């Protein structure tokens, strides 16, 4: 029988081969294999390189996965202190920023194509002002020195750089110092509007001290005072919504030692710490520096960013220069008045990633190299030095910052790698090649500066009316990532707003003005005003509005353009007037119902309940009575455990999943219609008191999966390893599986959602099928990683080591555990472990650890 099959197959093969030339509709084009195989490239086997991404000068170390020379995925570098292995959503989405067809592709002169050579000739070092982004690169710092020596003025600008804390410290410590907080050892943490959860370093440290094994576990206590609801507020044990102006009062109270929170802080002694947010005023930071005098969790270092806190970090206002060169950033957008300064010079040059507002205000615009395309070095927030190496030749004609500065200095062209290698020994004792391999120089963190704080009386201005807090958007930041469709489509963790810009306000404030979500309101301060839709966020401070920056973009970027309003117009204002207009907008809010409706969904309790045994979720896990027999399962039995105590809802996992599994961004209209394609959904529930809990929801890989038995073609089946698998090619798209999924974690390709943009295609993971129109898809537990691990183990004749899923690897808090049932047995047996919708009898392989809070018994709930 088999020989018959073979012979028939061979016949068809021969017939096919014979007719191939005749049938082909396209002319045959020869392709050539490598003449000399590069020793490091094995087709199909990815290579990993360490480098760093830079934001406002600070480096985040990443490991880049490349396939045949194409970077496809970024992971956090465990050896780099800013990452410790985790990332934010922004780093995960950076790959899409690299392959962005909207990037500045070539130098232009008033919009017409020109050459770098022409721009170089126009660069006159006499009477020139260079505006850079804040930098920590020793390479650039050296060049800045040379430029200044040549008479070129250099300043640094970023709208959200960390400067208030440095200025505030100077009030107390008499010198410019950067605060360095280590939360790993803190027992009591008080956040004054600090974005701890959005910083992988803090998130990891915070989570490390909040992992609950059982009632006897030690757990830190986190108090959060904040205006808007942040991911830090989500993990708080106590959270109070306060107006921005009240934070100084809170700090004063803590300094005086009044109230239960201050008493708790004092009891913690050196293991207590207060962290003020980077957007807080220098006055608040000065108060915090005094409160933290006894804390062992805080150290002070020399500012890592070059000249941080000094006058050089202001935009040039004067018109005494003839040439202005802006390298990176988008100052015209963030500071609209800067456009006037540019208008008055002879030649303005913008070197940046996009044809943005600043490019439009400059005569010349030229492409800057992406972080993944250039050689450089940068320091992490703690001062740790690391190299930046390119993973790909510049896709466009981009130059690095150093190359631009070299051109101004009329230096002879130098190979950037040689330049960095030559300069390296002056910065670090670690050999350059070792540093490239590791991505960070160990023990290169900035040394502690011993300080003797003095009491300083600080005053803060009283505020009246509706206060305004302009904040960087958690994903779009100051607008620099606004052209990244993945980040646009990623719902803001609390308001669940995607693709849109809205002013956040509390239900009481909204009721006061008669505003509902979607109503367009006019915010005005003095002569400036913007119209923006409102979104009601339970838990937001009353009489205050949070407005994210990064929207209202007016550049030529097709995706960023035209969404929302520019919050920087109101950035100087602390109070605004609010007026309702009669217009409204449909907002792409991905979650309709904020309430759990009394259902036992995202379970939780307190550490005290766990200790006393009052909280035992045994009824929510374990076997259920069933009529079904058990089919044989073999091999490693994969399972996942998600810890809701440490999950902040930061959404890095969602983005990591999108990057790993080639899920598309589909646009605002489809998000409104309920068709988002993320394989992970961060469920958000708000209770009556406005407290928000989050719960990552993805395919639960049910052992008795309800989706499987309703598929008419057997496209979704169970693997012997317990995975709920999708055969995309077999799916006809009845969508019955989704209807019968109690978790609604299946995603459907309603249209041909996959990208056809040639540049974007380069970023796809070649190990994951790109799904076609009309098929269902969902979380696979990163089956491609499981198979790779199994194959590697088999090839190397060693026991299987459980691989990491993409979401697990990205999670800065380490809230996601993945492995075999045996490996997770201890986690699954914990008293607060539970299965979602346990009573449905689906026997999910993914389970949760309930959200455990550690409230202060002195404070009534």
């Amino acid at each position, binding site marked *: 029988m088999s020989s018959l099959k073979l012979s028939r197959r061979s016949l068809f093969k021969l017939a096919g081969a014979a007719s191939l030339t005749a049938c082909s509709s396209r002319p045959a084009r020869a392709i050539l294999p490598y003449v000399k195989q590069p020793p490091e490239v094995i087709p199909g086997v990815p290579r990993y390189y360490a480098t760093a991404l830079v934001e406002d000068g600070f480096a985040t170390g990443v490991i880049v996965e490349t396939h045949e020379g194409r970077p496809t995925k970024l992971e956090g570098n465990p050896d780099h202190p800013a990452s410790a292995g985790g990332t934010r959503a922004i780093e995960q989405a950076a790959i899409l920023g690299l392959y962005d067809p909207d990037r500045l592709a070539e130098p232009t002169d008033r919009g017409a194509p020109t050459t770098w050579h022409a721009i170089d000739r126009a660069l006159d070092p006499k009477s020139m002002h260079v505006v850079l982004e804040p930098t920590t690169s020793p390479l650039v710092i050296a060049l800045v020195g040379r430029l200044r020596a040549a008479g070129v003025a250099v300043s640094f600008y970023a709208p959200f750089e960390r400067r208030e804390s440095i200025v505030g410290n100077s009030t107390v410590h008499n010198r410019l110092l950067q605060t360095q907080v280590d939360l790993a050892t803190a027992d009591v943490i008080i956040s004054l509007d600090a974005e701890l959860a959005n910083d992988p370093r803090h998130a990891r440290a915070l989570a490390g001290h909040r992992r609950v094994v059982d009632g006897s576990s030690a757990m830190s206590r986190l108090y959060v005072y904040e205006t808007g609801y942040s991911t830090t507020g989500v993990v708080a044990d106590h959270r109070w919504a306060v107006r921005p102006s009240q934070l100084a009062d809170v700090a004063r109270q803590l300094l005086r030692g009044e109230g239960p929170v201050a008493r708790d802080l004092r009891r913690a002694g050196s293991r207590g710490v207060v962290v003020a947010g980077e957007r807080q005023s220098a006055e608040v930071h000065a108060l915090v520096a005094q409160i933290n005098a006894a804390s062992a969790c805080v150290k002070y270092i020399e500012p890592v960013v070059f000249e941080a806190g000094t006058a050089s970090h202001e935009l040039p206002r004067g018109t005494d220069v003839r040439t202005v060169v802006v390298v990176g950033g988008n100052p015209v957008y963030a500071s609209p008045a800067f456009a006037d300064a540019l208008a008055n010079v002879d030649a303005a040059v913008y070197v940046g990633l996009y044809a943005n507002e600043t490019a439009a205000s400059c005569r010349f615009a030229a492409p800057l190299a992406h972080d993944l395309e250039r050689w450089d070095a940068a320091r992490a927030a703690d001062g740790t030095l690391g190299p930046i190496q390119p993973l790909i030749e510049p896709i466009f004609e981009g130059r690095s910052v150093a190359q631009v500065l070299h051109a101004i200095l009329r230096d002879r062209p130098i190979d950037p790698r040689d330049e960095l290698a030559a300069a390296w020994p002056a910065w670090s004792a670690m050999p350059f090649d070792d540093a490239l391999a590791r991505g960070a120089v160990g023990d290169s963190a900035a040394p502690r500066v011993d300080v003797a704080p003095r009491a300083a009386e600080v005053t803060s201005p009283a505020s009246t009316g509706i206060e305004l807090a302009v904040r960087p958007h958690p994903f779009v930041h100051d607008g620099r990532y606004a052209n990244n469709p993945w980040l646009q489509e990623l719902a803001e963790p609390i308001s669940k707003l995607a693709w849109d810009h809205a002013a956040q306000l509390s239900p009481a404030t909204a009721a006061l003005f008669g505003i509902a979500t979607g109503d367009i309101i006019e915010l005005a301060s003095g002569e400036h005003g913007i119209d923006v839709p409102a979104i009601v966020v339970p838990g937001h401070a009353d009489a205050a509005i949070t407005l994210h920056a990064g929207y209202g973009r007016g550049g030529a970027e097709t995706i960023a353009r035209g969404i929302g309003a520019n919050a920087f117009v109101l950035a100087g204002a602390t109070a605004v007037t609010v007026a309702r207009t009669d217009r409204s907008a449909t907002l792409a809010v991905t979650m309709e119902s904020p309430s759990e409706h009394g259902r036992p969904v995202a379970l939780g309790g307190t550490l005290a309940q766990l200790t006393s045994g009052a909280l035992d979720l045994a009824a929510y896990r374990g076997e259920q009575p069933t009529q*079904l*027999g058990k*089919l044989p399962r073999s091999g490693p039995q994969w399972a996942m455990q998600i810890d809701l105590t440490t999950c902040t809802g930061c959404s890095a996992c969602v983005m990591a999943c999108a990057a790993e599994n080639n899920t598309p961004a589909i646009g605002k209209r489809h998000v409104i219609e309920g068709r988002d394609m993320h394989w992970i959904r961060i469920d958000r529930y708000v209770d009556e008191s406005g407290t928000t809990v989050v719960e990552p929801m993805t395919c639960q890989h049910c052992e*008795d999966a309800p989706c499987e*038995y309703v598929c008419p073609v*057997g496209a979704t089946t169970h693997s012997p390893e317990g995975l709920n698998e999708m055969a995309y090619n077999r799916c006809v798209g009845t969508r019955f599986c989704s209807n019968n999924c109690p978790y609604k974690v299946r995603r459907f390709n309603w249209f041909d959602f996959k990208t056809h943009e040639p540049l974007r295609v380069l970023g796809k993971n070649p190990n994951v099928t790109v799904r076609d129109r009309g098929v269902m898809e969902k979380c696979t537990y990163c089956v491609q990683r499981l198979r790779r691990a199994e194959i590697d183990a088999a090839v190397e004749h060693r026991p299987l080591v459980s691989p990491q899923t993409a979401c697990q690897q990205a999670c800065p808090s380490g809230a996601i555990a993945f492995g075999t049932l045996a490996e997770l047995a201890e986690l699954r047996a914990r008293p607060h472990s539970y299965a979602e919708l346990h009573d449905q009898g689906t*026997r999910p392989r993914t389970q949760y650890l309930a959200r455990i809070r550690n409230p202060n018994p002195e404070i009534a709930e």
Partner: protein
Amino acid sequence: MTPVLAAEFATADELCAGVRALAAAGITELDTWTPYQVEGLQELIGVPRSKLRWIVLAAGLLGGGAAYLLQWWINVVDYPLDIGGRPYHSALAFVPITFEMTILCAGFAALIAAIMLGGLPALWQPMFEVDGFERATIDRFWLAIGAGDRELDRVRDTAALETAGAVRVVWLGDRA
């Protein structure tokens, strides 16, 4: 049957009288043509009950059995798949298709058997050559004696049919 002596009646009752008269004369090779089924006529001629239902029953059982067997074979033998932990031989789930296939095969058998056993399709039949026979589907009732009947007596039977009330008696024997 090749009709040789045909008679046209205006009513079903007269037709029945004609049939009775012929039966009395010992005629056995006999057929009738009516616009609708006349109750009692079949017993009068002495035609046995149709065997069609047994064909239908056999086809139905065959279809249903094959459907169940196929479902069992693909789920247990040929390509067993772990479908949400459900047993390979999920007998209850196989019932609906088994039932539907029983009905479908039986239905096909009924239609095809009715057509084939009735001698159809036959777009030409000898009786169509008789003038006025087209009213057999509207309001006239016909009978005819076959050429093979040994008891056929043209004169006697013509008289008997006319006595029974035949509107017209036609001799077709010369045509053949």
